[in-house]
């Protein structure tokens, strides 16, 4: 609707959901293509040219990934993506160091790949501490310090949050872990290639990476596993031919790996400039919206934040109805009005913003291929739609009449 005013050069729908996934960079695709056809060999085939060529592609990629994160290429283990990397890191450490301790520390706004893996381990006799987050989405280091005990073997805290873009103080977390002799794993899928990330400087022992969040392919990821100071050992979670130094069996996804490596190389060269570009677009979107709408709130940290992320609550407007009004724009909402329980985003709830603001939130994820013209169009559409929906909103009307809606006795008669 309302598409009659689309400026030239804009193709609808506009994609602004780059934390969910990213469009593959054409340069990545170009690097991958030969490995589907002429260079199709199995990287584990040691006896012929096909195998050697595939292996070369894999090893070059390993080096490119390692370079981006300050690791050595031998410390990169290829997986099917971040979910597998998280599972391998957490379960692999838990199983390997069980004798040493059974306590794991994580935090409440982790991705489900971490939270559900921890929950699984709780069923197998592990104790898990879920640290709270502060209003800016970051953990309090004192909470972490207090949670550590002699049984703690692993701390797993994400580098950047996928919903609110908050950057955790991983360098300080890692330092604390090393001081106490505890391993530190970080799900770094949103951070790597977007903000500086260095496993040595940041004191990281294990880091999950995936291709499709940084303009590479889906279905291909990696796990960084530190080889010294300290040396990290893992129990493999997939048994088979002993690939990847015995930590992850299975024939390597050579085209995917080559794509992931190329994506890391591009990020290495372009990250600094791209971060400036994206934060510029992000701030422009924010400024447009704040100039024309009252009662809008940024969720998460303003200072420690991914450059392309903006998560905003538009008070008194429900997120799903807002998405419906801007259906030519691909973004996500923290509202999940799809069940009788109507649970909004657990990440936003963890910030203590209140369920009503969680229901009113939209996540904008800007990426490499977004333009200023798109930002201008999106801002206009969002502003117009919010205004229209507020005309429809009994809450906005009540607030304008001076009623404190937090003091109203709500009769939730809808059976939930």
């Amino acid at each position: 609707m309302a598409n009659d005013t689309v400026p030239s050069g804009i193709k609808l729908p506009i994609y602004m959901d780059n934390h969910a996934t990213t469009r593959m960079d054409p340069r990545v695709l170009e690097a991958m293509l030969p490995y589907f056809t002429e260079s199709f060999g199995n990287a584990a085939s040691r006896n012929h040219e096909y195998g050697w060529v595939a292996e070369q592609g894999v090893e070059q990629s390993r080096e490119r990934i390692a370079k981006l994160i300050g690791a050595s290429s031998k410390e990169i283990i290829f997986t099917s993506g971040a979910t597998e990397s998280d599972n391998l890191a957490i379960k692999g450490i838990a199983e390997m160091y069980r004798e040493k301790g059974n306590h794991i520390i994580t935090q409440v706004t982790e991705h489900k790949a971490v939270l559900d893996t921890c929950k699984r381990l709780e069923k197998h006799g592990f104790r898990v501490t879920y640290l709270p987050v502060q209003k800016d989405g970051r953990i309090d280091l004192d909470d972490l310090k207090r949670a550590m005990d002699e049984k703690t073997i692993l701390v797993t805290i994400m580098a950047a949050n996928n919903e609110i873009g908050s950057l955790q103080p991983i360098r300080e977390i890692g330092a604390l872990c090393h001081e106490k002799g505890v391993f530190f794993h970080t799900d770094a899928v949103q951070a790597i290639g977007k903000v500086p990330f260095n496993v040595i400087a940041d004191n990281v022992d294990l880091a999950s990476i995936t291709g499709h969040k940084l303009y590479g392919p889906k279905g291909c990821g990696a796990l960084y596993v530190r080889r010294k100071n300290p040396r990290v050992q893992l129990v493999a979670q997939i048994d088979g031919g002993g690939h990847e130094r015995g930590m992850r069996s299975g024939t390597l996804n050579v085209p995917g790996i080559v794509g992931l490596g190329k994506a890391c190389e591009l990020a290495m060269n372009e990250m600094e400039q791209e971060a400036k570009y994206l934060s510029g677009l992000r701030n422009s979107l924010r400024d447009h919206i704040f100039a024309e709408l009252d009662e809008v709130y940024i969720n998460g940290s303003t200072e420690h934040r991914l450059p392309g992320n903006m998560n905003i609550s538009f008070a008194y407007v429900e997120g799903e109805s807002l998405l419906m009004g801007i259906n030519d724009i691909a973004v996500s909402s923290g509202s999940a009005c799809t069940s009788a329980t109507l649970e909004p985003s657990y990440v936003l709830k963890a910030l203590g913003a209140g369920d009503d603001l969680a229901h009113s939130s939209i996540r904008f994820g800007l990426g490499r291929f977004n333009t200023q013209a798109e930002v201008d169009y999106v801002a206009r559409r969002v502003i117009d739609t919010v205004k229209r929906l507020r005309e429809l909103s009994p809450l906005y009307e009540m607030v304008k009449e001076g009623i404190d809606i937090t003091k109203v006795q709500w009769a939730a008669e809808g059976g939930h």
Partner: protein
Amino acid sequence: MAYSDKVLDHYTNPRNVGSLDKSSQTVGTGLVGAPECGDVMKLQIKVNPQTNVIEEAKFKTFGCGSAIASSSLATEWVKGKTVDEALQIKNTDIVKELSLPPVKIHCSVLAEDAIRAAISDWKKKNNGEAQ
């Protein structure tokens, strides 16, 4: 989620948006739902004291597209009906008319609640004499 054409139509062109004077003797106001549940509906009716016919209906809704459509439809349906006739409207009728999927049935329940709450408010104001 794919929305039915009727939901889209009510969402894009909601009927009877607005407010009536809630202090008026002839107006009944229903406010149901809660902000933390993601749905709040306000539905108001203006009743002719002689005939008990609902002459005007207005709504405002905070909620998803299906909630907006359900309440918009509810105002259309109650208009011209007597209070007793309006009480016959069932949430299942709304589900059917708007082709709501199972996950959105609560929106229709809320709309039915809003009609009942508005009528009950009006009855209270009129000491139940107009029953």
